[in-house]
């Protein structure tokens, strides 16, 4: 089990400096600085339209028009809010996308087994439920053995029960593989349950950084979690009764 201490930032897996992005006259990112240590999970929290997803796209190398610099030490894989599986490839072929060489089949099978879908390799994506498809997307990222997993509201489109299971799955996979993760979410609870550190994006910059120190497996009814949640919700402008 990986420890939930704030990572060692002298060995960062990702550093970004002065990342800025504007769409026409609208400035979405106005110079973001951040660093993620190896093995660390960082949640990026912000209201809708705060530019969280834009930042993740920049860091994933999908935005050619952003300015500033970001350096990745190692490899990254992305899980999007939608599963984005190719409908014309069977599940196993989707997971194997872009991989070559001997042993790909074994690696794919192992990744599918890790997300609990060992027997669905021959299925078409259209035959899967939303949660299953998202698990395949996780397997597709996992099979690349990334140093950093970029997650763009990966469980946002799932129902509450499936979301809880997926959060558990992510925690388990991180403990086993030790990858670092940047989790974009608008769910304060999810951020606190999964992350070692929460970054709050507001007005295009990282407005606040909150270390989460709740022990290895925080429980939803932990009073410390309640206090942190209230603080973050206040900061996001949500009135808490």
């Amino acid at each position: 089990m990986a420890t939930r201490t704030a990572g060692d930032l002298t060995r960062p897996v990702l550093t970004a400096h002065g990342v800025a992005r504007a769409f026409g006259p609208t400035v979405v990112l106005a110079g973001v600085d951040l660093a993620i240590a190896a093995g660390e999970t960082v949640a990026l929290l912000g209201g809708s339209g705060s530019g969280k997803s834009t930042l993740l796209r920049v860091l994933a190398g999908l935005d050619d028009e952003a300015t500033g610099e970001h350096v990745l030490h190692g490899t990254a894989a992305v899980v999007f809010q939608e599963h984005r599986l190719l409908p014309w490839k069977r599940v196993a072929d989707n997971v194997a996308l872009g991989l070559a060489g001997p042993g790909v089949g074994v690696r794919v099978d192992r990744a599918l087994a890790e997300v609990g879908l060992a027997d669905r390799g021959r299925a078409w994506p259209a035959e899967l439920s939303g949660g299953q498809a998202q698990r395949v997307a996780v397997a597709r990222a996992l099979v690349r053995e990334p140093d950093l997993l970029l997650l763009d509201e990966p469980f946002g489109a799932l129902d509450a029960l499936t979301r809880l299971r997926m959060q558990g799955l992510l925690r388990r996979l991180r403990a086993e593989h030790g990858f670092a993760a940047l989790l974009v979410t608008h769910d304060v609870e999810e951020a606190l349950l999964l992350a070692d550190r929460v970054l709050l994006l507001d007005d295009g910059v990282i407005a606040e950084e909150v270390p989460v120190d709740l022990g290895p497996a925080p429980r939803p009814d932990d009073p410390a979690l309640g206090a942190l949640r209230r603080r973050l919700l206040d900061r996001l402008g949500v009135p808490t009764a």
Partner: protein
Amino acid sequence: MTSPALAEAPAPVVPVGPAPRRRRDGAARRWRRLVSPVVLVVGWEAAARAGLLSPEKLPAPSAVLATGWRLARDGTLAVHLVDSLTRAALGLLIGGGLALVLGAAAGLLRLGDDLVDPPVQMARMLPHLGLVPLLIVWVGIGESLKITLVALGAFFPIYFNTYAGIRDIDERLVEAARTCGLGPAARLRHVVLPGALPALFLGLRLAIGAAWLSLVVGEQVNAQTGVGFLMMEAREFSQTDVVVLGLLIYALLGLLSDLALRYAERRTLTWRRGLRAT
């Protein structure tokens, strides 16, 4: 997973009840749909035999079939059929190939879009069969006229469907492929081509229809062989049975090519039936 048939069934209390009944209904309907065509053909035959239809205007179906058998046996039919098919295939290959290249260029590249699409959009408004007089001046009345006509007819459906098929691909899938480390060539092969394939099939089906139509017109201009020539020659000698036979052959060719294409489509696009298959 529940089957769609069960999901739609009005009374799911008896889960096996509705399906066989629906199948029986389907079979009954198929038979019922055969009734009116059969009645029409039988009526046509009866009217011809009773002398109500003069053989010069419309010969009996049995007479048409007998003529077909006679021409097939002495080899005449095969010669003309092979020539027509060759023209159709060559025209489709040339027009379709060109359309595929230009459609892909316009769909994939901004420069291609700006340079290729405007003239094609303008030319689209021309009815290509109306170009026959001009084409006669340009390429003469020989074989090239027929092939050019077929190529022109096949070009537009394939061009527009290639273009639309590529443009309609979900940008998010291309992005996901990028994050999986796929370069431009691999993205073309794994994302763009399979994504555009349904539209390509639609384009090909429309193109084949246009090709037969072009052939009918083209083979009536100074042809020495081909199904169209057979019909024109027969008309001069008032062999109406051969004219009707030619029409029948055109219809059969269209039907067969459509069936073949549908079969190929079903084989290649299995993933689209994924939802219904389980």
